[in-house]
């Protein structure tokens, strides 16, 4: 049962264009994440938000900017895409707390930069 929804599924664009990806979760979680999965299948955290507040901001190029309107939504904007941005972008959510909290992933947005 899908509870983390990402749009679009695929996006093909050219270098220098701006793209935006959307993510919504219906699990009632208070923490959301963006991960990048590259061609070697490495999963790297980019950002995480807790109740609309940025709590993790890894070293990513400044052209990437997350946006959260409420705790159920987390979008990702890339201002001027580069070829190395081609990857699958995975959104995830979890509860935040001292116990073991599972991540629930969306199906991903595959970005191809020509």
């Amino acid at each position: 049962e899908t509870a983390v929804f990402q749009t679009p599924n695929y996006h093909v664009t050219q270098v220098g264009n701006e793209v935006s990806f959307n993510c919504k979760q219906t699990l009632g979680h208070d923490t959301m994440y963006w991960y990048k999965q590259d061609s070697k299948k490495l999963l790297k955290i980019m950002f995480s938000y807790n109740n609309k507040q940025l709590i993790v901001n890894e070293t990513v190029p400044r052209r990437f900017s997350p946006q959260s309107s409420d705790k159920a939504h987390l979008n990702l904007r890339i201002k001027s895409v580069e070829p190395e941005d081609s990857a699958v972008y995975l959104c995830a959510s979890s509860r935040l707390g001292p116990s073991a909290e599972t991540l629930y992933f969306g199906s991903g947005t595959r970005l191809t930069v020509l």
Partner: protein
Amino acid sequence: GDSVTQTEGLVTVTEGLPVKLNCTYQTTYLTIAFFWYVQYLNEAPQVLLKSSTDNKRTEHQGFHATLHKSSSSFHLQKSSAQLSDSALYYCAPLTSGGNYKPTFGKGTSLVVHP
């Protein structure tokens, strides 16, 4: 710094034989829990096993793992591999490094052949 080491690359096993995927973690923070996530072809990663209890065996879908906090290890095992187990497996420790930042190993691709 922190690092996750899991069996890298490709692991192939014959159907019906046992399989073991290793995972260890080095951190200066408190290890809260370990997870194994599985990603089937063209699907999102999903949790397979998780544990936050030291020296306790955890089982799910025929897989099992025991968390050893003293050695920061959580090796994944199955006594009899099935064709449907072919997938990408990620080890993901969770630590209390100020911000809860789920970090993933590089992934192990498991191929089970007849």
